[in-house]
């Protein structure tokens, strides 16, 4: 087991090198640079341009810049944002809880609806149930988040008035960010209205962000269930006279869940990618929205640092999933 974890950890190093190289070169391949992005119609006089280029360290050869970026990143220093002049690490940490909160709720929604839907579709295969679940999940999977989010707002906020349009909490609640998780912070404030408001602000973005993982989970659960339901032990359990609920819920589901859990791990990447769009629509102050703006402003340190941190999170989660999987399924460890 130990050597498996070690091997798995060894893979992380080249992944990181790949990511840093990719992030570093991609942002530089975009036309324009951070200094140019600071000026408008007027442009900037060449003297100030050079001075700022020097201050941002962008007048040095690319390998030197890359070396410094990696060296500093290894030491936990992601540099200063060229826009706000604040530490990129601090900027990231200030916004990350908002993204986790949203992603967590979206994932919760995806599981709570996706799992049962997949099970129903598998058990009632080739019935109207199956077709509706699969049809709906195909629709959900193909839905552009941007359009879907706006549609939800128009429907539930503007027309029906059930949910707030955007933001994390109603304006009258000034909740200081202690943990950064609005649900927890608003609970800690002791104001029930604040908690309710925070909750109601989470509904639409969670639906928008959770739709794709929901569809994936439902489809994965269905196909995995179908496979397991064909197994001998399920037939045996049925033959023994076990109730349908017991057969499906206990014998089949447990084994069907293994690939589903892997899928859930992989969906973390989807969630973070989807958060970029969801946060932009719902004015959700998380890292997705922050990164989009950083790219627009050619804020190299913020993009490099932010993507590196997000990638680390995804790598970390997948590492944990892999190790857990190895714990559950010994065959993986020895391959």
């Amino acid at each position, binding site marked *: 087991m130990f050597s498996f974890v070690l091997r798995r950890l060894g893979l992380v190093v080249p992944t990181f090198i790949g990511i840093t190289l990719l992030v570093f070169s991609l942002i530089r391949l975009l036309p324009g640079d951070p200094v*140019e992005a600071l000026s408008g*119609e007027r442009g900037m006089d060449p003297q100030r341009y050079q001075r700022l280029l020097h201050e941002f360290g962008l007048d040095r050869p690319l390998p030197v810049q890359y070396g410094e970026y990696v060296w500093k990143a290894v030491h936990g220093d992601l540099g*200063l944002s060229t*826009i706000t002049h604040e530490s990129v690490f601090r900027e990231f940490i200030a916004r990350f809880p908002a993204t986790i909160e949203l992603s967590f709720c979206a994932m919760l929604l995806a599981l709570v609806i996706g799992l049962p839907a997949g099970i129903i579709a598998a058990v009632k295969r080739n019935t109207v149930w199956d077709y509706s679940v699969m049809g709906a999940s195909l629709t959900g999977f193909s839905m552009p988040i941007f359009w879907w989010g706006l549609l939800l707002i128009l429907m539930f906020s503007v027309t029906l008035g059930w949910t*707030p349009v955007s933001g994390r909490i109603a*304006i009258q609640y000034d909740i200081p960010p202690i943990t950064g998780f609005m649900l927890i912070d608003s609970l800690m404030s002791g104001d029930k209205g604040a908690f*309710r408001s925070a909750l109601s602000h989470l509904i639409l973005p969670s639906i928008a962000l959770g739709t794709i993982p929901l569809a994936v989970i439902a489809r994965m659960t269905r196909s995995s269930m179908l496979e397991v339901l064909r197994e001998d032990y399920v037939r045996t359990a049925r033959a023994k006279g076990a109730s349908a609920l017991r057969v499906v819920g206990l014998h089949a589901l447990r084994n069907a869940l293994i690939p589903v859990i892997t899928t859930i791990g992989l969906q973390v990447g989807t969630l973070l990618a989807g958060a970029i769009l969801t946060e*932009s629509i719902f004015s959700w102050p998380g890292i997705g929205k922050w990164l989009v703006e950083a790219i627009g402003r050619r804020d190299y340190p913020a993009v490099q640092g932010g993507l590196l941190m997000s990638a680390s999170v995804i790598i970390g989660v997948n590492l944990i999933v892999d190790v857990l999987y190895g714990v559950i399924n010994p065959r993986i460890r020895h391959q």
Partner: protein
Amino acid sequence: MKTTRGYALSTLAATALLACSGAAYAAKTLVYCSEGSPEGFNPQYYTTGTTFDAVSVPMFNRLVEFDTGTTNIVPGLAESYTASADGLSYTFKLRKGVKFHSNAKFTPTRDFDADDVLFSFQRMMDPNHPFAKTQAGTTYAYFDDMDMKNIIDKVEKVDAMTVKFTLKKPEAPFIANMAMDFASILSAEYAERMKAAGNVETFDREPIGTGPFTFVSYQKDATIRYKANDHYWGGRPKLDNLVFAITTDASVRYAKLKTGECHVMAFPKPADVALMKNDPNINLVQQNGLNVGYIAFNVEKKPFDNKLVRQALNMAVNKKGILDAVFQGAGAVAKNPIPPTLWSYNDKVADYPYDPAKAKALLAQAGYPNGVEVDLWYLPVTRPYNPDGKRMADLIQSDWEKVGVKAKLVTFEWGEYRKRSKTGEQHSMMFGWSGDNGDPDNFFVPLLGCSAVKGGGNVARWCNKDFEDLVQKAKATTKQADRAALYEKAQVIAKDEAPWITIAHSVRFDPVRKEVVGYKMDATAHHYFTKVDMADK
């Protein structure tokens, strides 16, 4: 069963709604849906309207200010000023009894005085000033952009309440520059105190000004909160609280305005404006923008070195068609380089008529009877003076086609576009300008002046001696009426020489909910809430 459940649901929704919009609103709170996060909280470092709306407008004052809605200069922290006869020095009499804000780390021990003015300007002027560089990567961008280093020679304290600016050359627009955001007055005492306490960044991050609202809190990318400054020298604002709800998507801002989650929104999409006009809950306030969108001909390149070609291409363009299709009515045809809201606008200038036949004749006369091929660069982004560069380029291309001129459409990424335009690589290009300070000089010199050919702002690369003499003379003249006469002549030359096709001045809209009282749009596209009130619902 079904009906009861429906009833229960709607009750729940109603309770939730009540909880959201209810009790805590005893105080008057206005929520403004702004379009983005401020870059920082020191008005001296930045150049974007987003930052000015959030920082210099609510929390700071200038020595002189713009009268909201116009570009007229009114007294601010200076009660009055006098210019010397030679136009080389300006003496400001400062307002007495003005208090700076306080926060948890700072309570002012004295009122605003000459030291604060000296501090604010010397910090920007003198690289050796102890507070010149408190953060890496910051520059006094707007101060530099307005060339203040080559305008102000020195700032001196005459007495505690009098300050004298000595200029290096006579510069009439100087006084308009003093009303701009970068010229906000900061507290010298606050800077000293924070430096002594060892956290000079606080000075930049937790703003202390003299303005109508004081800073309460900023939650990154989400909300900025302010409260009324009870000691405001101009009288306490009627609002108790002002909140900026940062909402980057224009459609979402509109949705928030409709549901009442915000009361005023920034920058509506042109396509939404028609809907807003018919919304009973919304007042659509509008004002002509202080801007101009144009096509510049690079006069250093053929065929644009020929005045007749430039005139012909002016006549070939159907501006009315462009206004309908691109601006959807939210614009006015431009005939001068400056908008009609600006003093010295010459309404007597006659625009080139839309006349393809005459254009063709002129082209033939210029030696291009069989037409000519040109490049037309178009804007890759939406700008305040041009909502859709590509669409405009398509229309112009087909207009020119009709007179035999084949235009190849070219564009680059926005930063690249500006960079290349400075090298003179362009043939004809689409560009535009939003005024900084409401002084005509701010259009003529940076866009059409001879020095701007070298600087790169003059993308037509047009340098005309008669025009240049007029605008330089206007710069050195202090009396506004005399200056206006000079600029009026300059506009006649610019029309005849046709370095540009002046296309449009856009109209700006601020959608405001009905319960908001006394909201006035600002000429320089800022959003002021000092005199705004909320009607009881």
